[in-house]
């Protein structure tokens, strides 16, 4: 009895044509075009998609990285902090000098101040958005006149820190040059007394001073602001 394998081989031999497949097509006037296998076409499609993705990724990195690592304050997604988003930590005066380099005035010559604080966001205490002290009392003599000033002082280290009353500083309408610095200020006349809002820039910091007369004994006007800038600031 023959095995299945032998039977299969015999059938194949009997059915085998005397000519090739191409010759069969030619004899029967059949035009044959070989098609690529489906799997091969999928591979080409995949490669095309991967190439496009790679190019898109490179383009995105080229555009995105400079924005992500830029320090520009114009970046619209910049995180902003107001006074309720921040905490304070006390630092010493020598630490302040070491960190900012230029403080703007000599705090050791003041008659009093509350304390010096490093201002940091509650959400990220590693970041410093500024340094501040308040109720700084300073007395100076100019042209034999005693001036007694009281002021709050902020050194802003991060331009996204929108502290209270920042708009009053940006509304400054007067300028004074003293030494190498350009001071902008505005005097706002209130019902009882006036306050000067003074600001200037140096290096990477913005400086803001809320200046009033100590116990309202010294009137705040252009002359007293000039005395303050020339005798207290820039020292």
């Amino acid at each position: 009895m023959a095995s299945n394998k032998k039977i299969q081989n015999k059938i194949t031999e009997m059915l085998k044509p005397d000519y090739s497949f191409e010759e069969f097509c030619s004899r029967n006037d059949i035009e044959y075009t070989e098609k690529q296998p489906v799997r091969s076409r999928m591979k080409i499609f995949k490669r095309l998609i991967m190439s496009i993705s790679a190019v898109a990724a490179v383009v995105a990195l080229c555009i995105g990285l400079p924005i992500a690592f830029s320090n520009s304050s114009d970046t619209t997604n910049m995180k902003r902090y107001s006074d309720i988003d921040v905490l304070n930590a006390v630092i010493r005066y020598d630490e302040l000098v070491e960190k900012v380099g230029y403080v703007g005035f000599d705090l050791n010559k003041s008659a009093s101040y509350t304390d010096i604080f490093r201002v940091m966001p509650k959400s990220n205490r590693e970041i410093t958005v500024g340094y501040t002290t308040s109720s700084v009392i300073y007395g100076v003599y100019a042209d034999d006149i005693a001036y007694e000033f009281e002021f709050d002082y902020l050194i802003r280290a991060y331009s996204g820190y929108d502290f209270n009353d920042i708009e009053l500083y940006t509304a400054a309408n007067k300028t004074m040059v003293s030494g190498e610095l350009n001071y902008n200020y505005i005097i706002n006349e209130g019902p009882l007394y006036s306050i000067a809002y003074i600001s200037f820039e140096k290096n990477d910091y913005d400086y803001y001073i809320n200046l009033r007369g100590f116990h309202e004994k010294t009137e705040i006007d252009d002359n007293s602001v000039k005395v303050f800038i020339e005798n207290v600031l820039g020292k």
Partner: protein
Amino acid sequence: MVKFISIIMGLVFASLTSIPLIPHGDTEARYSSDFQGGTLRGTQERTIRYTTREIDQYKSPYGAPVFRSYKEGACSVNAGGNAMIYYDRLYDDLVPDYKHTYIFGSFDYGRQTNAVNNMFDDLYTRMGTTVDGTTVSGFLSGMRSYASSRGRYIAFEKVTGGYHNTNIAYLKEQLKKEKVAVVFVDGFSISSNNSPIRRDGYDYVLHNIYEGLHTMLVYGYADYYYYGSSGNLESRDTYLYVSTGYATSSLGLLNISVLCTVDDIYLINIS
């Protein structure tokens, strides 16, 4: 049977999930300078035009201290602690080792020393303050406990009323007696303490607007009555002089008649 067990389990699950996660005794609002769910904030400029105006104002000749605790959620501690500093000029033992000073012949609260910091830490504990803030009841009991520990008696007088939830007439009367008050607000604005700024023909006010709960020390008031050309009262702006508790603009004005909700306000007196 299976259906019956499913119904029973469903009822058990429903009753378990309806148990409040916060214990009932801890549901009282905590006042801190943190946002409590609001998102709107920023500034608003306001101009008030008038023909004539009348100003009724007073602020303590001693101003207000602007010291701050370094701890989070401590605005009520700041307000209460600064009240203790304010009254320390009358009772020197109220804040141990702290002493006010005189500069150029004028009264001043001086530096924030360790004595001030220790007092803040003590109040933080006595008030049961957390990073989320302080409850009104915690504030009152913490202040009483602290005053008692210093051999003093503290009296609180609630001065809520019909004018923007404030009994403004009585509050004014008592502030003029050199008392201070503490105000608990939910949504408020702070303006520069020389507001309103005088412009040509109108008053200008810049409001720094905050949503959320906050506590501040009150040491005076300024009530503005604006009249039109026919002499009729057109508007009224009522401000309280406050120690804000903020790093900048440490002293400011709280306008209780616009952009503000007063939750509670208490006069403080120590004897």
